[in-house]
């Protein structure tokens, strides 16, 4: 039997990977994928806790997260296409019309 904490550590590791990817990657699509990775890492935590507490609630939460992530992906990709049309690039560094 694999202990609960292993799943939690895996989830934390995936979340951190997503976070690092978000901060380091330079392509918008990859940055977006990093966010999806973070959301899925959270899903893993929810399922783990649902197992620990013997509660379906955690698993239901995961379905909602998936639905919301799908909606977010639809809007996000549309925005990315709009950016590409306007600027002909997907490099984060070059989306810099407005600077601090």
């Amino acid at each position: 039997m694999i202990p609960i904490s292993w799943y939690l550590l895996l989830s934390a590791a995936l979340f951190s990977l997503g976070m690092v990817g978000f901060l380091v990657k330079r392509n918008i699509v990859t940055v977006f994928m990093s966010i999806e990775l973070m959301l899925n890492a959270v899903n893993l935590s929810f399922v783990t806790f649902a197992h620990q507490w013997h509660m379906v609630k955690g698993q239901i939460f995961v379905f909602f997260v998936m639905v919301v992530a799908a909606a977010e992906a639809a809007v996000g990709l549309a925005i990315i296409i709009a950016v590409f049309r306007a600027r002909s690039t997907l490099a984060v560094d070059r989306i810099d019309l407005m600077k601090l």
Partner: protein
Amino acid sequence: MNSVPDIFRILPEVVLTITGVAVMMIDASLPAGVARRSLGWVAAIGTTLALWASLWQLSLPEGTGFYATVETTAFTVFFHVLICGIVLVSLLLSLDTLPERNHHQGEYYALMVFGAVGMCLLTSAVELLLVFVALEISSISTYILAGYRKETGRGPEAALKYFLLGSFATAFLLYGVAMVFGATGTTQIYEIARLAPTAQNHGFVLLALAMMLAGIFFKVSAAPFHVWTPDVYEGAPSPVVALLSTAPKAAAFALLLRVLYEMLPTLRPVWSPLLWVVAVLSMTVGNLAALRQENVKRMLAYSSISHAGYLLAAFAGLGSSGIAAASFYIAAYAAMNVGIFAVVTLVSGYDDKLPLIADFRGLMYRSPLLGSLLIFFLVSLVGIPFTGGFFGKFYSFSAAVGGGAIALAIIGLLNSGLASAYYLRLAFAAAQRPADRSAETPLLTPQVGVAVGAALLLAVAATLVLGIVPGEVLRAAEAGAHTLQAIPEAGAHVITMAPQLKP
């Protein structure tokens, strides 16, 4: 147990949803090329009805609905009325300023209304699952609205920055929710409040608090989570910024109040210093950056960051005084900020043709009405008596002093002094007589239409009422604060419907 039908608990949201869907359907059935401006009126009427529906909710007994996922209390009604009011003014403002030739007006109005659904739901949700869904409804609508001027380079850029950083922040909030669930085995806020103090895994609760705060601070654009704000405000159309800078923030502050005062009040020793630091950072960073801005919208963006700081100072206040001060400040801030963005929309135009402070020079002489309105809202932002901004700051800082955070109140006062430098700079520019009358830039919108006139009137009236007779609103805020603090007895409101898994 409670005799109120569940549907009445979410009546304003239902009205708003029907309005949004109706606007979308009518938009789809209209032939191409037909003006879509009238859809804005449909949306405005629907929002007004939702506002009445929220006020009507006051006659209901307070309580929860839908298996303890939403509640109606004086607190939720306060924020519902505020959010519906902001959305109504933004809709009226858009009606006269969106270009006629734009073919996506139907979507625009529908998205504003759908955003309002999410924000309203966020303030009345007492279940973290619903909090998450409501937050996303509001965020996704506003991501699209931020990039509404997609033909320019800045529109999509603003939407992209808002979207990427917003989703990043949401992931943090969600991770926090997962940790709360791990520590307590529930996501119902009253239940968490009951179980969190005795949770075995105290570390999870602390981690959850930190993660959720990070997510919420992003939404209210408090430093150090504020970097998106100036870019989004600059790239988004001004009528949208009027909404973006106020309504989602009001909803997020309501959530922050709920998380801190209702869900985890026992962790006050942990979150209180954290909020102190964030408040001071937001005020100082916002004001220092605003001082060196030439673009009016960027300046106002930094000013909104500093206002988030003044507002967070109220959280140092003990119990209901802090909650009431924060609620009042949100209302005052919303009134004057929507107002000033309405003026900026009329002066700079929908396309931001005149975005700089220098472009505002001599506004008083070009249009005495807009000039004096601009100065009026700036004076309110500075916090001069007889305007909403004064009482907002007054209550916020008194709450901080009452909570023993005297240093915080002093830093806040110093910052208000610093802030008046850039507000007055814009005010002086507007009041200055232009040196050469031929070099004067013509006013983009020479006539103030009916809808915009109503929007400006509402904003001015709200700012004045909050500044001269704040008693009524303050009483409403206090009533809300009391309902937020009175946590229902264990199990009284919660029906656990979640089936148990077989071990």
